[in-house]
């Protein structure tokens, strides 16, 4: 046995020594003042490989020490072990795992209980003797954590991994798992691509054949990604090859880029609405800077030529672009107009070429001739060259599993007085954003890891790209001259919001992005929270100019976010806005946000969090768990009958008895000349159901279930009565509209009401002079209903694209498709007519009220603007659906079905255990 050292015991002598040696090399004041005695238990990463010479750790770059984690003032709760993101925490279990060929399914990994942010990870581990870590495990761990530690020089890490791999390669067993990992790290942790590339560059110095084997592996992944239209992976792998340009003969990556460009042109020529060609050009543009920044020299001109070709495509405005604008319209107050990501990048690249390709933010990690290398006579510039792997661009191009839309650039902080993020003219803005967004979207299966990458982002770029983490905004003006004022946390927050505000929809459910922000805030509150505050203010300030759907997303995020942080917000900032008319978008936001907060909590609690002037926005009614039964008062018509109904439903009386009471209501109503006698009886019946079910959602659902037959019959008899069902539910729950929206949603499932009924009620019966359009729950109800219809539509479309359908099946589905598509269009038409009536002021309800007291010019203008906002949102939704399930789109997809028969579906990023059901519609 080695020496019986207890490796994870912080009091062990060698750790103390190591730590002292670290301290001795730190030159920052705050670190100098560290009391080692206090800090020791918090050693950010217990070094595991003690064979590593300590001197290697002594070459720390100054900027890397600015890690706030090193600050003595950090809260204990903010601590996290930097390498928790990997499963490699415990090399011993890792090794076991490997030996057993484990890692399948729900593995035996007992890390589970003690993952994330637990200080005692290393202390409480049963102490056991240590065997030498197998090289495979060491390689895996080192590659996975490359560049993560601010205490190590990434070049050194890359060299060390290359050395180990070259040695290991000699021994020859199980290279495959390392090669697999190499591929995987490119597509799962894009921040590390330049670092992984550096490993290969160093490997090539000593073992060209090992480097070649890596290319082969990566190239086969590139091929399969191209074949399946997995564009993100294509982009990331090309980036990797771009970083390795120097290793290839001839023009290296460029011929492949040329070929992709030719394909893009073909696609663009073939269709005005093409987005795949745009995606290809985007990939080309995002590859170029990494080639230029790589050790390869002399490709500037080649890049300029390619850029000249891409310009026409990149600067072309896409037909759908106006629909995905974040701040639509032409007002001068808009914070920014539409800019496509690809158009912006094209311009930035051209700028950069004129400035001699500085590309300052990309880390340069490879020094061709490491001085301390043993064979000092080896002339480095002549390192081995390889032929670029053979890649076939499939024809026709597989558009990929997801429909693509033009990307609009979004930034909360760009181009403002203080430069906290790169200007939109700076190539860094695109490069940084691209990796951030990919990281966020790839790692949705571990939001903690995502958040950690966001916080540690500055580790993965050239030194001095950013200012020290968590530098307060008002300190930025003191920064001298040409030093960077880019705040890493602003970049991170900006990137997450760019996803929340992606139109038509971001890659993942919105709640994922909420959770990333929550985790980031938990990990580094001092850094993230102030940036978030500035983000909220920015968004609130421009709320009236923002696309309405996005305004709603903002509100939904805001309420959800606060619910994770004790509902704390500086409400006093918006005091002026609560005096505004309820029709104003800002006031509507406040009302909507408070309602959402209450739904996640309860009225009394939310009122406690608000300053006094806000209290009137939370009426008494919201505190009532059980709203009154309006028929308790004899003032309400049909009160005795309704009370009787209530008693009968409650005791589950036979239908005849209920019918008898309903008949009495009908008789009375008829005597009062009520046109549709079903309306008052339905009101009484449904209100009774709501009252009985007021205890909880389950109660009301089971009550509806019991009364289902009668409710369905009512619907068959009268459309107006069906809308009355909705009206009664909403009226009963008027103070807690969230519950009403929910119940209506369930009524749709039972087909007790139809989607058209809901929309007709919300934008017809309930529309008034257009005030309904300002109520966020009305939007929620309508958007939810439309979402149900479009989802179903897409499901039918997917069914049509299944393989191996018989002719009869196809015909059946086609009929269905035709019918459903027509009713979907009808729904969109109705919405558009209704809201355009308000937008133009032509709706009856609007004309009636126009000019009345409390409905002057100002109010009229506000309401018309709401009409326009609604119209925009639903026109976009309609256009999006057309582009997916419209006749033309379906024809194209059906035609493509035949040609893709040979392409094998590829395992997605969720190739592991629980997420495995995901190869889904890659082929469709």
């Amino acid at each position: 046995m080695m020496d019986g050292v207890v490796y994870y015991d912080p009091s062990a002598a060698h750790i103390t020594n190591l730590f002292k040696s670290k301290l001795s090399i730190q030159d920052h004041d705050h670190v100098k003042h560290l009391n080692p005695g206090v800090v020791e238990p918090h050693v950010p990463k217990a070094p595991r490989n003690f064979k590593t010479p300590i001197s290697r750790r002594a070459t720390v770059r100054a900027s890397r020490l600015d890690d706030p984690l090193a600050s003595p003032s950090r809260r204990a709760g903010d601590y996290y072990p930097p390498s928790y993101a990997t499963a490699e925490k415990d090399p011993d279990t890792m090794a076991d795992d490997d030996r057993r060929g484990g890692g399948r399914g729900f593995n035996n990994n007992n890390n589970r209980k003690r993952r994330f942010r637990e200080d005692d990870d290393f202390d409480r581990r049963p102490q056991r003797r240590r065997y030498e870590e197998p090289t495979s495990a060491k390689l895996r761990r080192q590659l996975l954590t490359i560049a993560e530690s601010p205490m190590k020089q990434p070049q050194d890490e890359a060299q060390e991994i290359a050395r180990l791999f070259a040695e290991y390669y000699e021994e020859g067993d199980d290279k495959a798992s390392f090669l697999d990992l190499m591929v995987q790290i490119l597509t799962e942790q894009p921040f590390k691509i330049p670092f992984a590339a550096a490993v290969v560059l160093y490997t090539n110095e000593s073992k060209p054949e090992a480097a070649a084997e890596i290319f082969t592996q990566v190239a086969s992944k590139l091929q399969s990604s191209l074949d399946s239209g997995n564009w993100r992976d294509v982009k990331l792998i090309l980036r990797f090859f771009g970083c390795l340009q120097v290793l290839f003969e001839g023009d290296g990556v460029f011929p492949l880029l040329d070929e992709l460009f030719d394909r893009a042109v073909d696609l663009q020529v073939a269709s005005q609405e093409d987005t795949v060609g745009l995606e290809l050009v985007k990939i080309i543009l995002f590859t170029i800077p990494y080639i230029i920044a790589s050790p390869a020299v002399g490709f500037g001109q080649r890049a300029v030529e390619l850029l000249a070709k891409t310009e026409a495509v990149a600067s072309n405005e896409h037909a759908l672009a106006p629909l995905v604008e974040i701040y639509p319209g032409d007002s001068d107050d808009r914070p920014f107009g539409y800019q496509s990501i690809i158009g912006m990048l094209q311009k930035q690249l051209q700028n950069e070429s004129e400035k001699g390709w500085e590309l300052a933010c990309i880390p340069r990690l490879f020094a061709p001739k490491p001085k301390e290398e043993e064979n000092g006579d080896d002339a480095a510039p002549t390192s081995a060259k390889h032929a670029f792997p053979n890649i076939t661009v499939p024809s026709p191009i597989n558009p990929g599993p997801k429909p693509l839309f033009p990307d609009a650039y979004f930034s909360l902080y760009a181009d403002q007085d203080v430069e906290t993020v790169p200007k939109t003219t700076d190539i860094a803005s695109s490069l940084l954003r691209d990796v951030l967004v990919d990281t966020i979207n790839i790692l949705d299966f571990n939001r903690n890891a995502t958040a950690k990458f966001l916080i540690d982002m500055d580790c993965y770029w050239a030194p001095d790209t950013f200012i020290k983490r968590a530098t307060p905004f008002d300190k930025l003006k003191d920064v001298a001259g040409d030093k960077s004022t880019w705040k890493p946390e602003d970049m991170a927050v900006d990137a997450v919001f760019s996803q929340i505000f992606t139109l038509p929809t971001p890659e993942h459910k919105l709640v994922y992005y909420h959770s990333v922000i929550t985790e980031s805030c938990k990990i580094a509150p001092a850094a993230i929270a102030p940036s978030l505050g500035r983000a909220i203010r920015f968004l609130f300030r421009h709320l009236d100019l923002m696309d309405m759907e996005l305004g709603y997303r903002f509100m939904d995020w805001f309420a959800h976010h606060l619910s994770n942080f004790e509902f704390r917000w500086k409400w006093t900032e918006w005091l002026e806005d609560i005096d505004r008319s309820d029709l104003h978008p800002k006031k509507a936001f406040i009302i909507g946000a408070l309602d959402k907060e209450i739904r996640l909590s309860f009225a009394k609690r939310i009122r406690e969090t608000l300053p006094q002037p806000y209290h009137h926005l939370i009426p008494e009614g919201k505190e009532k768990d059980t709203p009154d039964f309006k028929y308790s008062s004899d003032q309400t018509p049909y009160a005795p009958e309704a009370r009787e109904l209530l008693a009968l439903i409650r005791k589950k009386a036979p239908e005849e008895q209920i019918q008898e009471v309903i008949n009495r209501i009908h008789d009375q109503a008829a005597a009062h000349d009520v046109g549709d006698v079903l309306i008052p009886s339905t009101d009484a019946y449904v209100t009774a159901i709501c009252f009985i079910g007021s205890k909880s959602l389950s109660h009301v659902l089971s009550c509806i279930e019991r009364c289902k037959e009668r409710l369905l019959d009512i619907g068959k008899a009268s459309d107006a009565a069906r809308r009355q069902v909705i009206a009664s539910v909403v009226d009963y729950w008027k103070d807690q509209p969230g519950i009403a929206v929910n119940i209506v949603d369930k009524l749709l499932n039972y087909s007790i009401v139809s989607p058209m009924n809901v929309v007709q009620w919300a934008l017809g019966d309930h529309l008034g002079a257009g005030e309904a359009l300002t109520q966020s729950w009305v939007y929620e109800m309508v958007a939810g209903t439309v979402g149900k219809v479009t989802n179903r539509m897409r499901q039918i479309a997917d069914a049509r694209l299944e393989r191996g359908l018989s002719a009869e099946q196809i015909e059946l589905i086609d009929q269905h498709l035709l019918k459903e598509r027509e009713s979907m269009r009808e729904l969109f038409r109705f919405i558009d007519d209704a809201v355009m009536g308000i937008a133009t002021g032509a709706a009856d309800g609007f004309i009636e009220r126009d000019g009345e007291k409390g409905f002057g010019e100002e109010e009229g203008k506000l309401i018309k603007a709401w009409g326009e906002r609604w119209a925009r949102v639903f026109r976009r939704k309609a256009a999006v659906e057309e582009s997916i399930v419209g006749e033309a789109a379906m024809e194209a997809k059906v035609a493509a079905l035949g040609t893709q028969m040979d392409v094998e579906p590829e395992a997605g990023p969720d190739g592991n255990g629980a997420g495995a059901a995901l190869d889904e519609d890659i082929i469709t």
Partner: protein
Amino acid sequence: MRPTTRNTVDRLDKPSSYAASKNKKRRFNRDRDHDDEDPYRREKTPDFEDKLREATTLYVGNLSFYTTEEQIHELFAKCGEIKRLVMGLDRFQKTPCGFCFVEYYTHQDALDCMKYIGGTKLDERIIRTDLDEGFAEGRQYGRGKSGGQVRDEYRDEYDPGRGGYGRALAEDLDRD
């Protein structure tokens, strides 16, 4: 798919160690019934994993006793439409006792919920989610001696959201 494929970072949508430990026990028992030398034993998927592979139900724990169905619905619907929500109840009093089952229509929604909602706050408490093989009648009741969840019997910290001190403990205190 390569058998060795695992992600470079842990996934949050795997069953918890609690669920996995239940699994282990069962697998152990089964394994004993089989021939130990059977080289293909590992290939066989235990029922448990099969059930969770398609799981649409989540167990949700560490709720406050006062958290309502509506609150749960509001949060969990962010991951997809909810098919069924079953509140955990005290076996005797039939009042909420701090857990529930949420059933989605799709497995993917359940996984997303594990990833995006498990470990975040509801009603100002960090809630726990776990994949569940599906609700069965009877499981909505607490299994603790006094009717609630077992964990609320002997808890010695005061948790106002979950009935104060552990019930068994509180009884002891009363007796003294």
